[in-house]
């Protein structure tokens, strides 16, 4: 066998291996989704979305769970977005290359790798106890905001970095100050990337359970929250709670709730992809 023939064989071999690996992931996901759909799809109706929790599986619904998740997401975003975007701008535009900013940078990358339960413990100590927020939506949102800060900071910095220097130069040459240039040119041009990062971050937050359990999200709350200081539960906790019940009816409920949660995540990822494509098409440097 000649060398080039051998190489071609290796090439083909690797290609098939790659296809097999990709298929593995897809097949597992498909089996999982298929199984969940078979179990839970028929359980989903308006009543399921509108009902409060109950001891009887056929009467129980996810109203408190999805409204709780929504409250948490909204407040997490409100807290994390301005903080993370400002931090991203600072690091990228004002931080320079000094020791202080490289220290910050290393720490932010480290934060991204900290297990989420640690954020829960931090949230419990700082927000629940020191700031006396109690087991509230607000405390949970603060804990999750900490968790997703690094994701949005990194996305912001990357988005800012893709703005070509020629755009800044044009702005400066017209007499714009640094802040005017950032506000009027750099930020609008990076918004696509920033939003993509925000949405990916929130779709991570929507599936988080551990930090919220520690901050005190409850497995059972009788009513949906009506203010940020109320007690709450979220979708993943509700699912976990149902899965651990012995009755078959609750397993079906859990499957149905998982479908809803997956749907939320898919939709958010879809929006992120859509925003990214739309912005990339609009700004073709």
């Amino acid at each position, binding site marked *: 066998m000649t060398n080039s023939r051998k190489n071609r064989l290796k090439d083909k071999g690797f290609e098939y291996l790659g296809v097999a690996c990709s298929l593995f992931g897809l097949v597992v996901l498909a089996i999982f989704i298929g199984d969940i759909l078979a179990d839970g799809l028929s359980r989903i109706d308006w009543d399921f979305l509108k009902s409060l929790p109950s001891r009887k599986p056929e009467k129980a619904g996810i109203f408190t769970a999805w409204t709780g998740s929504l409250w948490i997401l909204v407040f997490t975003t409100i807290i994390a977005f301005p903080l993370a975007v400002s931090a991203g701008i600072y690091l990228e535009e004002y931080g320079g290359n000094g020791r202080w900013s490289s220290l910050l940078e290393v720490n932010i990358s480290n934060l991204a790798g900290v297990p989420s339960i640690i954020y829960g413990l931090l949230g419990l100590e700082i927000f629940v106890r020191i700031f006396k927020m109690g087991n509230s939506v607000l405390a949970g949102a603060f804990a999750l905001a900490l968790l997703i800060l690094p994701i949005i900071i990194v996305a912001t910095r990357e988005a800012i970095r893709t703005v070509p220097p*020629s755009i800044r*130069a044009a*702005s400066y*040459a*017209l*007499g*714009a100050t640094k802040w005017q240039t950032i506000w009027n040119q750099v930020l*609008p*041009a990076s918004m696509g990337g920033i939003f993509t990062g925000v949405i990916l971050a929130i779709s991570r937050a929507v599936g988080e359970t551990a930090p919220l359990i520690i901050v005190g999200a409850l497995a059972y709350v009788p009513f949906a929250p009506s203010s940020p200081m109320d007690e709450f539960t979220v979708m993943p906790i509700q699912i976990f709670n149902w899965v651990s019940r012995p009755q078959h009816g609750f397993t079906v409920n859990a499957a149905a709730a998982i479908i809803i949660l997956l749907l939320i995540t898919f939709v958010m990822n879809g929006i992120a992809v859509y925003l990214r494509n739309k912005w990339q098409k609009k*700004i073709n440097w």
Partner: protein
Amino acid sequence: MDNHILESKSVNVYYDDMHALKNISMKVEANSVTALIGPSGCGKSTFLRVFNRMNDYIEAFRMDGEVLMEGKNIYHKKMQVDELRKSIGMVFQKPNPFPKSIFENVAYGLKIQGIKDKEFIQNRVEKSLQQAALWDEVKSDLNKSALALSGGQQQRLCIARALAVEPRVLLMDEPTSALDPISTAKVEELINELKQNYTIVIVTHNMQQASRLSDYTAFFYMGDLIEFGKTEEIFRNPKVERTQNYITGRFG
């Protein structure tokens, strides 16, 4: 020439250890076109950016000497750089419109000065686009994205954008090098018109362009200002052999 608006006095520029401009003293006559010529890397762009302090953003940049605009040192501590740039506009080598509408591009300079008067902005945008010979082509869709324009139109838009703040001086760094011949002709025509009211300093690689457009020509070579004078004289009988060789295309 006593009606000069810009003057560099013994300007030295360094990028780290590299001596990019060596002791340059030169005066720019008001309401005229001054061409900076010379082979790549000789310091033309650097010298152009000295006048609106755009080198300030380059980390390795260091400078000594004085640069005067109407007798005032623009590198003085108290100089407001953003004010300076309102009177010294710049057009870049590659068209660099903002990813916004045509209107917003031209209005940007006014907006950042805090001007809110809609009618005033509207009029100034129209006037600038007319000066830049772009008005007729874009008047029906000022809200279209500037990125949808052709390269030549984009460059004229960038000229309009610079003119909208009514600068006294226009610095142009090889403004036609990225354009096709027809667009180049349009921009050259434009420069000829503009010199009535503006002082123009233009970097160019194109000898015909320099001789067609400019009143004064400065020839740079490896960071030195080799020769400076009236364009006719530089092109008809240069005093230095190296200038002669460059102009006639014997090296480049």
